[in-house]
């Protein structure tokens, strides 16, 4: 088995149980032979007990006891499968309960989003909501699966009609790459294997699409950003003067000898060495975890960012973000929250709610200033120290923030720098 150059692709699935989302995941796992015999035996037994005909693949995605009992999904669950071409991580997000919170969470690390539409119902509110969040979180690839084609006699006209419905509303969204695939998750048409029922469809089945999406360009390789997580000081023979700055490259490429600037202090130096584990390397790129040393002795600590001198983020104390409110407790006006960006943490407050977005209609509301659970709003944030500003559109890793309420220690909001 030669897997050495295979990439990892992370995708989310959005949709409700009714759209056949669990069946689709079950189908992908089953047809790619990722379901084991003991798991299948357990699903078969449960299917029989519940009186289902045949094996209900949807049961494979049930996790917690409450989910099995109530037939709902409560939280994001992660699933894994591998084909000879790629390794896949599915963030399986619930369609109904706390949908914004869960979808945003699943979408934050995804390369691709699968949006499911029931062929009988076409584009519904939920579709718009999912597409909106996928575009808000800048998922690079969107795959719209029009499911249950078997229930509409596999008609091309139904498929085409839904594609145009989708294109009409998605023209208002910021989406780079959208594809449409007619499928029947239940029967396996165009999931792993090409459908014999829909010869009019010339594109690839879903799995082949996932295996061949071009994802190498999904990470920003232009703007070099390296947030220091911790400083390595070995204090042992051979390394007494060693000061290594450990972190994961957020974006860009670093080479030994590069002229760098440390933010926020502004001190400049050159990269003396880069280590990946025990191995010394001459260059490193996102998303590698490395440690680097600089030619000069500079005071650098966690939260500082090492960037290339010729490509620096702007520094601001007031800036706008698109904020998703994730907590039962509404936002407290002008309250101080702890803001995390990369490894940097500081106090911040929401200075102003500019507008809220209705994620079903995309309408903007400038009247409602209350941020409650699942709200999505453009807000102005004010920080106590200068904030290293990269827009989320340019840089998903440095343009993202979370807010933590220090009275409860909960993560209450996620934001994307505009």
């Amino acid at each position, binding site marked *: *088995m030669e897997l050495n150059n295979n990439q990892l692709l992370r995708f989310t699935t959005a949709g409700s149980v009714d759209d056949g989302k669990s069946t689709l995941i079950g189908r992908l796992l089953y047809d790619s032979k990722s379901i084991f015999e003991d798991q299948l035996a357990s699903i078969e037994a449960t299917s029989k007990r519940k009186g289902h005909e045949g094996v209900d693949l949807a049961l494979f995605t*049930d996790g*917690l006891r409450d989910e099995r009992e109530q037939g709902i999904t409560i*939280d994001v669950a992660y699933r894994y499968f591998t084909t000879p071409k790629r390794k896949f991580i599915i963030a399986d997000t619930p369609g109904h309960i706390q949908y914004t919170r*869960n979808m945003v969470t699943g979408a934050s690390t995804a390369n691709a989003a699968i949006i499911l539409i029931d062929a009988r119902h076409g584009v519904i509110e939920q579709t718009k909501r999912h597409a909106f969040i996928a575009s808000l979180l800048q998922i690079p690839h969107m795959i719209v699966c029009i499911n249950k084609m078997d229930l509409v006699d596999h008609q091309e006209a139904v498929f085409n009609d839904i594609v145009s419905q989708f294109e009409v509303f998605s023209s208002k969204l910021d989406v780079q790459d959208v594809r449409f695939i007619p499928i029947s998750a239940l029967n396996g048409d165009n999931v792993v294997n090409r459908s014999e029922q829909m010869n009019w469809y010339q594109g690839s089945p879903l799995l082949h699409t996932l295996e061949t999406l071009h994802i190498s360009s999904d990470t920003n*390789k232009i703007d070099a950003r390296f947030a220091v997580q*911790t400083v390595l000081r070995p204090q042992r023979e051979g390394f007494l003067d060693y000061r290594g700055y450990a972190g994961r490259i957020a974006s860009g490429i670093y080479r030994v000898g590069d002229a760098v600037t440390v933010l926020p202090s502004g001190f400049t130096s050159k990269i003396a060495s880069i280590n990946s584990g025990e191995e010394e390397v001459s260059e490193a790129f996102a998303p*590698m*975890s490395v440690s680097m040393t600089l030619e000069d002795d500079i005071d650098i600590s966690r939260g500082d960012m090492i960037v290339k001198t010729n490509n620096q983020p702007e520094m601001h104390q007031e800036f706008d973000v698109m904020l998703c409110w994730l907590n039962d407790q509404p936002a407290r006006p002008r309250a101080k929250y*702890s803001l995390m960006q990369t490894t940097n943490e500081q106090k911040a407050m929401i200075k102003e709610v500019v507008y809220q977005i209705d994620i079903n209609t995309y309408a903007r509301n400038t009247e409602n200033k209350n941020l409650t659970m699942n709200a999505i709003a453009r807000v102005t944030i004010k920080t106590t120290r200068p904030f290293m500003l990269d827009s989320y559109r340019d840089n998903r890793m440095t343009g993202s923030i979370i807010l933590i309420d220090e009275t409860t220690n909960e993560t209450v909001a996620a934001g994307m720098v505009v």
Partner: protein
Amino acid sequence: MSKYFLNYLDELESEAIFVLREVWAQFENPVILFSGGKDSILVTHLAHKAFYPARVPFPLLHIDTGHNFPETIEFRDRLASEKGLQLLVGSVQQSIDTGRVAEERGKNATRNILQTTTLLDTIEAQKIDCAIGGGRRDEEKARAKERFFSHRDDFGQWDPKNQRPELWNLFNGKQFEGEHFRAFPISNWTEMDVWNYLLREQIDIPSLYFAHERQVVWRNDSWIPVSDHLKLEPGEAIEIKKIRFRTLGDITITGGIESDADTLEKIVTEVAAMRQTERGNRTDDKRSESAMEDRKREGYF
């Protein structure tokens, strides 16, 4: 294709190293939960890479049920001394002797569930604020819901329905006194990924993982090793089989599979062709459909 991309194992490695460094940066007194199994060995190896040339800054914490494979203990002690790591041991026997827990009764009695009390007592006594585990989301359906940074309340309990959202690379490790965290750096690895990585990096693992001849008894659809703790049931007979273990837990609950795989290469090939999950040979998970979820809620690994 551009040369600036990572293959999946390098990306998983980079993610795990990032998590380990976040733990070190965000917590005061973190430890690695060390069972002697391949996953905790992998975590220790990744910690070595994360902090090189500095030493691994985490002590190893072993929750010792007293029902060990002797090979595991030998391996544990050797690894700790080679890497210069501090070893902490929480003893289930001591929890029994002091009356904190009582032995289970019945045919399939084990000390598996008793470990939770010992673990939580040790975490409290040692003021541990983060315990790093080798748990993986592909192992079990309740584990599929785990965060990288997983909050535990002051009773050590996990509330799976009310977890903090975890977005991008931003991990919130904030806690109140008495609470603690579990961190899972290899959340996104599958069993196959672990074996492929162990092979690639030539990481030393206990001999139990390789095929060897052993005295065993056929019980609950797997080969249970003969030990001082095993009581033969009527109709059971001791046999000698060439077996290996896919996971290592207590000697009383870990079943082996018949195998000829005596090298890492052969194990990778064998695992790739497996049609049963690795925990399928663990009687602790067979008790009910939500056996793992129930134990995890209480504070299990």
